[in-house]
């Protein structure tokens, strides 16, 4: 990510040019979309959870007879007055609404305290599918459809489409039940809007796996080398979306901090008590927590120090973050402080999803090297395998492409037998490191035309055993290991993939031996 204030180009030229250059650097320099993908995964999961939680309350919150029923909502959408400030000083002279001229105006004044001639406009502009779908069965159909879409967005399938649909789905809930909203909905909406703008499906997504599969398949079908790397291309739109998140987050903290300065309790340092002793939010109904508060309150000096420290920490975080987070030496400190603040909010106020959404926004400040470190975490200690195939076999090419698609941490090296006799120019060894060529050598001649997998221990597997070994080895597939333990799965798999030797066929030849002269090694 290009979010480094200290990395920008050295200033030269006049001030206007420098401002323009910095502006362009800030908003329009390309950055790696991996972080955006990580945020999508995180925010997508939270969004899915929030939408899933609606399932129980679908009728109570969005049905025709919900807490805010359609009658009230219609009034809110069409009649709610908005009075603008006047362009002269006449509003200072006004004492009450303009006198009514007819019965309708009298009724309107009784209702809204305003003459209908006074408001600048009426009504609320919004979209929600729940304004129109009111039959309980159809509501459930739509709700499940939205859940499916949000799930697809979370896993990053057709992300450009599902991100927009997810936002519209969430907007539908939001705009239908306006009185049930709180900070979490605001943050979720912001995250979804910015994830919709950026290429959030470029990493950590089914889309990226499909791209891996597709590009491998296209290359192998054309007897070209499979792409050596699938690292997402840096994009301006990724940077743009991250910048929007960052700037919006700073705006949130700054506003929240500045508005707190208006409150006496934040100056006297007692505001934190108003949150941790609030019986509806805090865990005060637990004996242990009440005992803790009693202990604190019984020692005034301790109480005063704790409350002042809490208020000061909150203000320092909210007011300091928007300025200091841009400076690299301060970034981690500010991020840690913000995460601590939200952890406190989650524990003492029970606002878990709100806090997690804020963490989602905070992630936009993660340095690129941290993201890369995180991305590479699963590759530590990963098993590396070799998959030998014949690129003349359409079926094997497809299978190999699927494996390549699922091999997100590049644990499998592809070995093509079909290159024997092919002109050297078509071989792909040139794109690989010498080490790759060496390690790809060697499989027993009896398996040379058959798809087979060579484990790090030198064992060779074919048929369903390949599938088993891949599930046990590929990081992406490891969560599915329990499926292999289900009785009968092995038998069904063996029937589907019949071979002479489903079990491992013993140790293969050593890597340094019997490397065919022009055997292909494809990464």
């Amino acid at each position, binding site marked *: 990510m290009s979010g480094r204030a200290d990395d920008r180009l050295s200033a030269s030229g006049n001030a206007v040019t420098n401002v323009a250059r910095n502006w362009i650097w800030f908003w329009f320099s390309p950055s790696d979309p991996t972080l955006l993908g990580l945020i999508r995964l995180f925010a997508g999961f939270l969004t899915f959870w929030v939408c899933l939680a609606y399932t129980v309350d679908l009728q109570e919150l969005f049905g025709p007879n919900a807490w805010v029923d359609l009658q009230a909502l219609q009034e809110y959408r069409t009649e709610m007055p908005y009075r603008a400030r006047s362009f002269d000083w006449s509003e200072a002279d006004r004492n009450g609404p303009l006198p009514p001229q007819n019965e309708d105006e009298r009724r309107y004044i009784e209702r809204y305290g305003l003459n209908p001639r006074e408001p600048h406009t009426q009504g609320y502009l919004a979209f929600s599918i729940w304004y129109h779908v009111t039959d309980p069965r159809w509501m459930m159909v739509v709700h499940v459809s939205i859940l499916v879409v949000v799930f697809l967005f979370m896993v990053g399938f057709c992300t450009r489409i599902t991100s927009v649909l997810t936002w519209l789905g969430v*907007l539908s809930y939001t705009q239908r039940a306006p009185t049930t909203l709180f900070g979490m909905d605001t943050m979720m909406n912001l995250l979804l809007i910015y994830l919709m703008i950026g290429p959030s499906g470029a990493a950590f997504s089914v889309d990226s796996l499909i791209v891996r599969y597709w590009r491998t398949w296209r290359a192998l079908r054309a007897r070209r080398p499979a792409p050596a790397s699938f690292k997402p291309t840096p994009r301006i739109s990724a940077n743009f979306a991250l910048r929007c998140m960052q700037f919006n987050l700073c705006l949130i903290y700054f506003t929240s901090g500045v508005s707190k300065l208006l409150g006496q309790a934040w100056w006297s340092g007692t505001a934190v008590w108003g949150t941790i002793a609030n019986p509806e939010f805090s865990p005060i109904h637990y004996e242990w927590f009440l005992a803790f508060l009693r202990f604190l309150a019984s020692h005034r000096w301790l109480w005063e120090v704790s409350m002042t420290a809490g208020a000061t920490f909150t203000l320092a975080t909210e007011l300091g973050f928007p300025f200091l987070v841009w400076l690299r030496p301060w970034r981690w400190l500010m991020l840690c402080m913000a995460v601590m603040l939200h952890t406190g909010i989650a524990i003492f106020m029970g606002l878990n999803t709100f806090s997690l959404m804020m963490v989602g926004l905070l992630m936009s400040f993660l340095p690129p090297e941290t993201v890369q470190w995180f991305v590479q975490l699963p590759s530590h200690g990963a098993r590396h395998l070799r998959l030998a195939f014949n690129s003349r076999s359409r079926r094997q090419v497809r299978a190999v492409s699927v494996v390549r698609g699922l091999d997100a941490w590049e644990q499998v090296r592809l070995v093509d037998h079909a290159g024997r006799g092919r002109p050297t120019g078509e071989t792909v060894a040139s794109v690989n490191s010498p080490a790759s060529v060496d390690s790809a050598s060697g499989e027993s001649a009896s398996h040379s035309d058959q798809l087979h997998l060579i484990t790090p221990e030198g064992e060779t597997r074919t048929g369903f055993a390949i599938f088993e070994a891949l599930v046990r080895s590929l990081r992406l597939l490891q969560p599915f290991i329990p499926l292999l333990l289900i009785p009968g799965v092995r038998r069904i798999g063996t029937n589907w993939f019949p071979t002479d030797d489903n079990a491992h066929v013993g140790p293969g030849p050593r890597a340094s031996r019997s490397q065919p002269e022009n055997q292909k090694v494809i990464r």
Partner: protein
Amino acid sequence: MASVEVTRQRDEEALIGNPWPLLVSGLVTIALGALLSSLFKDAAPWLTVLLVSVGAVAVGGAVVVRYDSALVWGLAALGASVGSVGFQEIGWDSAQLLFIVLMAAAGVGALLALLPTTARWIAISALIVLHFGGILTAICSANGTWVAATLWNYFYRPHLQFMYLNNAYHFYSPEPGPAVLMWFCIYYEPNADESKNWRWVKVPDFDKEGHPIRPDGRRLWPNTEYTRRLSMVESINFPEFRDFSGITLVERQQRRAKAGAFRHIPMLDDPDIPEYRAPNEISKIWIEAYVRHVARTYRHEKKPELAVKSVKVYRVTHKIANAKQIADGWDPYDPMMYLPYYEGEYEPDGSPQNNFLVEDGLPDPFLHWLIPILPEHWRERAPFRPGPPEGKRINYVLIHAGVKDEDILP
């Protein structure tokens, strides 16, 4: 020439390189949906919704495939405009609005695609300023400047409301305040001997262990749904500072005291606690909606066949015990920590009743007044004695509601 090569290379690498089949099929589907809605109106609205939605997704897919083509964006805008007509015909006004917004967005996309890089950056920069300028007006217009309020009203309001970007971000400011609860007393048809049938509904409610529950006793889970209930109640907590009724606060107080003396419902007389607090117009709309909901949803627990006659509403502030009170051993859930304000009695359809208890032609003298919960013999209690008052609490809400205590209220 170079761009043609890039496009060709991209087409080869992309899963779907050609946007036209998607675009054309999407546009045709949308047009078909719009045509159906024009021809058959209300006969098959679902077909229109389905066709236009599917068509829109297909067109969206085409835009994803060829996002740098002004023609594709332009045709997408055309599709959105046709879709908006389709929704207009079947009366889905908000979907019509959505498609108008999509049309505008696609139009902007087409313009951006036409522009050279520098001009595109300038245009996007202008959009950035507009976007965050709008958010700033939402932040500042609440109690802020004339400029922000005017910009919000005349320019930004549609954008901010539609996108749900209207939050002012004033979290827990200026100060964190107490939470608010709602108590509804639902009156059903009386018995033959004119005795009352009633039921209390509290939002949110809690079980003995302090876990939030629904009015039917089921756990309110997950926590997000509980917070939603608290937000819901908070929406009736916006006060109205203007009063055009012509009744002064002193007059109101006299009427309240007189009616209180008549019904043995004292005033709290605590200078730190305002005893009169009327909600604003929007809060009243929500109260009426909530009344309709409880009247429709909650039957009498033992005689579900009884019809609802009226609903009394109490907005209850749950005070936060201060540090001294906690140190002195107060229970944060002591009934005295609850401050119930009477918000009126309503018909099941949500329309407010006016009970003329005092025959002066004016509304209910308890309306918007605090109905306190006090300890027995509270007037005789010695001042400045630490710790919570001993003895039984008298919840005057029960007296006001005219029902017996069933250990439901504090």
